[in-house]
């Protein structure tokens, strides 16, 4: 991990982040710092603001207050080039959101070509590498509809990775998958983590959290209620709300 004056500079730093829809306060002041190479695992009941939190990090949702600093840059500053900043922040969605009219290779090359301005040949070479990295070297010509859910999600991960982001945000990446396909996606995420990628993962996969997460964050009602190492949050949570939620999650899985 790169050190600056003995202190690790966070790659992602949220301070006092607030967001409301109409009268509904969804984020009520969230502070969170994610160190380079760290995997932060976010859990919380439905509606607690987990997705909103991730979507504020690349301004898919516009925060109402607070700061979002990515790689040392305040991305809420006026005049910031959002399309440039977003390439540093990969995002993986629950519903994959692959472009159905493009092949796997086309999905991965689009931003390389249109945003980064790469020529076709190098963009495709890079996209092939990204697809190979998620175990789909042989699927580059397939359209999304011809792929299983697990394969589609891995293409989506490759699409994010090809841009060489500093951090990748995962919003329930395996929730839409049949149980037997979950493992292939989690395996790719484990490899990413092992390769040093910084990740924020919203998910219910507790087993994955136990062995891959550096820190677990429990959200409820638009706030971070409790956070700590997986063993602490899952084994001996301090807050009653955390205990209840973890117990429910464990029951379900």
């Amino acid at each position, binding site marked *: 991990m790169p050190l600056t004056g003995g202190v690790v500079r966070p790659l992602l730093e949220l301070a006092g982040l607030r967001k409301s829809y109409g009268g509904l306060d969804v984020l009520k002041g969230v502070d969170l710092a994610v160190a380079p190479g760290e995997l932060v695992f976010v859990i919380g009941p439905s509606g607690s603001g987990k997705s909103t939190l991730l979507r504020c990090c*690349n301004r898919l949702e516009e925060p109402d207050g607070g700061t979002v600093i990515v790689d040392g840059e305040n991305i809420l500053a006026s005049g910031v080039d959002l399309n440039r900043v*977003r*390439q540093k922040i990969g995002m993986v*969605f629950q519903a994959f959101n*692959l472009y159905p009219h493009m092949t796997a290779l086309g999905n991965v090359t689009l931003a390389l070509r249109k945003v980064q301005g790469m020529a076709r040949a190098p963009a495709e070479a890079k996209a092939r590498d990204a697809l190979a990295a998620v175990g789909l070297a042989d699927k580059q010509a397939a359209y999304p509809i011809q792929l299983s859910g697990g394969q589609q999600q891995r293409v989506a991960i490759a*699409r994010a990775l090809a*841009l060489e982001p500093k951090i990748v945000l995962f919003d329930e990446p395996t929730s839409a998958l049949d149980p037997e396909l979950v493992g292939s996606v989690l395996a790719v995420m484990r490899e990413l983590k092992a390769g040093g990628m910084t990740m924020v993962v919203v998910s219910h996969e507790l087993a994955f959290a136990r062995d891959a997460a550096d820190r677990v964050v429990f959200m409820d009602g638009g706030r971070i209620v409790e956070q700590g190492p997986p063993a602490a949050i899952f084994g001996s949570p301090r807050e009653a709300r955390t205990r209840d939620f973890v117990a429910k999650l464990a029951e379900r899985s």
Partner: protein
Amino acid sequence: MEDGWARFVFAYLNPDVAAEWGPKIFEGAVITIELGLATIAAGLFFGMALAVLRASAPRWVGRVIVAFVDVFRAWPPLVVIIVLFYAFPYVDLPMGAFTATWLALSLVLAAFAEEIWWAGLQSVPKGQWEAARSTGLSHLQALVWVAVPQAVRMTIPPLVNRTIAIVKGTALGSVVALPEILGQATSASSLAGNPTPLTLAALAYLAIFLPVVILGRWIETRFAWKR
């Protein structure tokens, strides 16, 4: 009975009249085809331009486009043709029958195409936009590379049907003396004192539009695709 049939053949299937006026109908067919192709090109181009503009310009621009679209979907195409043909000379814009018919049908097709494509753009899932924007594409890039191609595919069946319906309106040009198929056929019929040219016209329309209808069906099945 025998007599009735003979009179029918003489009136509608008269070989002598057909031979004499066939070339005129053919000339008309050339104009019909030119007019149809020009209408499709201009109408679809303008319709797409309006849909893209509406999806990316400020709200008031969208409202202007909606007003245009609603007006031209409400007017009968024949009214537009006649108004353009008779009104424009007064404002010192000479407008031939061909130009008036072409412009009128193109505006009507543009209005319908805009509405169809707009609906298609609206039905592109939000997640598609989010995926595109999250990788750094601008709104316009996401529109052009992600939303429009999906909207176009989704809307092929209604668009093909609407295009065929409007392009058949080339026959309306006969009202402003455009010598397309129907115009040629009606004047030929009165000159010949025999309706056989109208039979030729019907056959000419079939020859032109039946392949288009079949092509339309082929395009619909070819591009029918599920997400």
